[in-house]
């Protein structure tokens, strides 16, 4: 595949040579970049699942993309109304493309090492810029082809064989538009904010993206009926004309469904063809020059020579830390967990979406059921005990934090724990657990409870407290049996081993049983109040147990 792509690029050589690009160097840079890509695990499909070996078979990743393409392709069959199916298809297509680009853009396509490896060699700027542009294009074309392939074949069943070449063109259009949009966002961001902020913002965009996709996947089918989608008139709203997928869909519409088109459709189709070309010209001419220079600053790190004297302000969380973790070692564990968690990108990337998943899951289950309007479902929900279910869902957040808190890409910095005279490492774990509960879990539960009080009224308070204590028991059990690593001290792991999986299921089962017990007794308000006391007691006993962990129980990672 790579060799083929490189050969295709080779066809452009005479043209490139005229613009001052050194073709041989270009070929070498592209070849080595593609080689590096192949040896690197792909981010989009593998991040949550197997991050196993260093050698991620790219075959599997590509296969998953094709499967995804098939699922999307099914949308194309919604074709009785103009534009609908294709607009949906290309919307998802473009979102997937943009997502891939964003998650890979910073690390792969803007490789800061280039600044020290390629820049000192006799390679001119134009060659480097062209190599970067072609690298992005090749990278994304590869994915676009896999993702678009099913669609290219399926379209033949809908609009006949002649639709295939046109669809191919549409796929290219969608790819170019995605590259363009992501580029625009990056260019604008890097011009406006500092390099450090830039990376953070990209991180938050990624988090928002994964939440949005999750929400769409679970909620849209619940809230909107498929049959209504089928009959949507895309062009009845003016703002739809601004959506790039509509332009792309218009192209098919204008050519294969000439019977039902109007002037707008033709205009949109033309815009769709012109926009990517002018856009890329605009990026290359207007935005790109400053971009490379900015990037050089990011990577050479000379840009931040203006050192500002920041004095550290203690905020309320420092006071909180001193209050709940007065013991010095515990206090250290508390603060290191809170600060590293707040500043480690990959931790945030994995954990923050969980905060949003809980309400989404809840809505998904609450609005499950057919034949009712949303108002009916809401009415029904208000009069049963589903709220208990909601509080127990928050354990999802807790387990997500606990699973990730001892892992870090920079786990080697944890050597410091092993060289210090800490005789009771359980205290660090205790501080860590307190930080998780106090900084993350408790505030989150408070917000959820407020939402609950708003919907179900004040009689739910005792349930909230009981559920919270049971949830912390769950957290405690998880911590006791699963989290034996000091905060951020282990390499990012593949998956829990077989034994751990079983333990985690057992714990989950136990808490589920407690949860159902809670639903069962929920009608006796006083019993609920009373039960809070033994639950707190169990928490306290287990916590003291956790605190007593010795070095024998702690899982150490190799630090060399």
């Amino acid at each position, binding site marked *: 595949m790579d060799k083929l792509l490189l050969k295709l690029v080779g066809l452009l050589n005479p043209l490139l040579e005229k613009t001052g690009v050194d073709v041989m160097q270009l070929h070498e840079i592209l070849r080595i970049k593609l080689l590096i890509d192949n040896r690197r695990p792909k981010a989009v499909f593998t991040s949550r699942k197997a991050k196993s070996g260093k050698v991620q078979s790219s075959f599997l990743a590509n296969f998953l993309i094709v499967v995804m393409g098939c699922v999307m392709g099914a949308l194309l069959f919604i074709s009785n109304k103009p534009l609908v199916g294709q607009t949906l298809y290309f919307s998802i297509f473009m979102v997937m493309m943009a997502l891939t680009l964003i998650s890979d853009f910073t690390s792969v396509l803007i490789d800061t090492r280039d600044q020290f490896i390629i820049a000192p060699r006799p390679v001119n700027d134009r060659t480097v810029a062209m190599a970067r542009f072609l690298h992005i294009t090749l990278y994304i074309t590869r994915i676009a082809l896999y993702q678009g392939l099913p669609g290219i074949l399926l379209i033949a069943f809908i609009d006949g064989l002649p639709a295939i070449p046109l669809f191919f063109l549409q796929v290219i259009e969608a790819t170019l538009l995605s590259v363009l949009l992501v580029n625009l966002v990056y260019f604008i961001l890097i011009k406006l904010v500092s390099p450090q902020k830039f990376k953070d913002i990209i991180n938050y965009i990624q988090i928002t993206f994964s939440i949005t996709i999750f929400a769409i996947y679970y909620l849209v089918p619940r809230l909107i009926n498929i049959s209504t989608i089928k009959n949507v008139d895309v062009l009845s709203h003016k703002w739809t004309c601004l959506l790039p997928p509509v332009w792309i869909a218009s192209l098919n519409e204008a050519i294969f469904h000439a019977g039902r088109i109007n002037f707008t459709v033709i205009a949109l189709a033309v815009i769709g063809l012109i926009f990517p070309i002018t856009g890329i010209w605009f990026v290359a001419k207007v935005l790109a020059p400053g971009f490379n220079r900015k990037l050089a600053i990011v990577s050479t790190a000379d840009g931040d020579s*203006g050192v500002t004297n920041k004095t550290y302000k203690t905020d309320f969380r420092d006071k909180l830390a001193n209050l709940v973790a007065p013991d010095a070692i515990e206090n250290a564990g508390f603060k290191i967990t809170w600060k590293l968690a707040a500043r480690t990108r990959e931790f945030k990337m994995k954990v923050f979406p969980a905060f949003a998943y809980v309400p989404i899951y809840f809505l998904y289950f609450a609005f499950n059921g057919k034949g009712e309007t949303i108002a009916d479902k809401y009415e029904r929900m208000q009069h049963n005990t589903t709220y208990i279910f909601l509080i127990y869902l928050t354990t999802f957040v807790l387990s997500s934090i606990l699973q990730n808190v001892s892992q870090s890409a920079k786990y080697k910095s944890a050597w410091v724990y092993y060289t210090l005279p800490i005789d009771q490492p359980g205290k660090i774990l205790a501080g860590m657990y307190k930080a998780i509960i106090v900084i993350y879990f408790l505030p989150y539960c408070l917000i959820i409870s407020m939402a609950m009080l708003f919907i179900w009224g004040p009689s739910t308070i005792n349930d909230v407290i009981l559920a919270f204590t049971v949830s912390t028991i769950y957290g405690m059990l998880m911590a006791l049996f699963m989290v034996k690593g000091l905060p951020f001290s282990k390499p990012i792991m593949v998956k829990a081993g077989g034994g751990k999986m079983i333990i985690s299921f057992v714990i989950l089962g136990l808490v589920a049983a407690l949860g159902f017990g809670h639903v069962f007794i929920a009608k006796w308000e006083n019993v609920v109040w009373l039960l809070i006391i033994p639950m707190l007691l169990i928490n306290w006993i287990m916590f003291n147990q956790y605190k007593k962990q010795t070095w024998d129980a702690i899982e150490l990672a190799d630090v060399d």
Partner: protein
Amino acid sequence: MNDQPIIQIKNLSKFYDSKQVLKNLSIDIFPGQVIGYIGPNGAGKSTTVKILTGLIPEFTGEVIVDGMNLAENPQEIKKLIGYVPENAEIYDVLTPMEYLDFIGKLYGMQEPVLSERVVKLVTAFGLGANINDRMDTFSKGMKQKVLLIAGIINNPKILILDEPLSGLDANAVILVKELITRLSKEGKTIFYCSHMMDVVEKVSDRILLINKGEIIADGTFESLKQNYSDTLEQIFSKLTGREESGVETDAIINAFE
């Protein structure tokens, strides 16, 4: 020694925003010289190196290398220079063979000369057995050796080394030191940046000390010794205005009370 300087730096200045990091630097460097370039952190050392290697294209003043102006002819000048960067960036998913092949081709070198040279150099540096292993498993010293090879692969006239010994074991350090002497005898010019005063003292035949963007000492180790102090370390600390010996350590010791 040749009369014509191979590197001429005239009135070189560089600003970051409003901060001036290089103040009208003027240096002539002659072929075959081993320049020991030393200075405290933030003195402008790495900025000078980055300008010489073409990493920072914007500066005021003039840099002439082998008769060519750096501002006008950066690509031709880069062909003459070998560079071993300080921060040891490398594409570590590649093997030494693949990486060095890539670097060689960027210099426009052709097969089979290139691959023969790569094999010879890698073997000479003692990495022959690892030539087809991916570098992500390499130790720091092994990666440093690959970087050194990448710096000399094109047989450059000028070699710019920025802390080239970091991570190397004692034997490799001896190898590199000997190599520097041999290369200088062959007429290569070496620009050696380091904080290791004892090494600089031994390998270089001319020492440049930069502080706050200005050259404050320039001469052989012998001449500096006569004018200032006995060891390069003492000369360094005297000229860069470190406080009277003992003041800082007093402050440190007092912190425990």
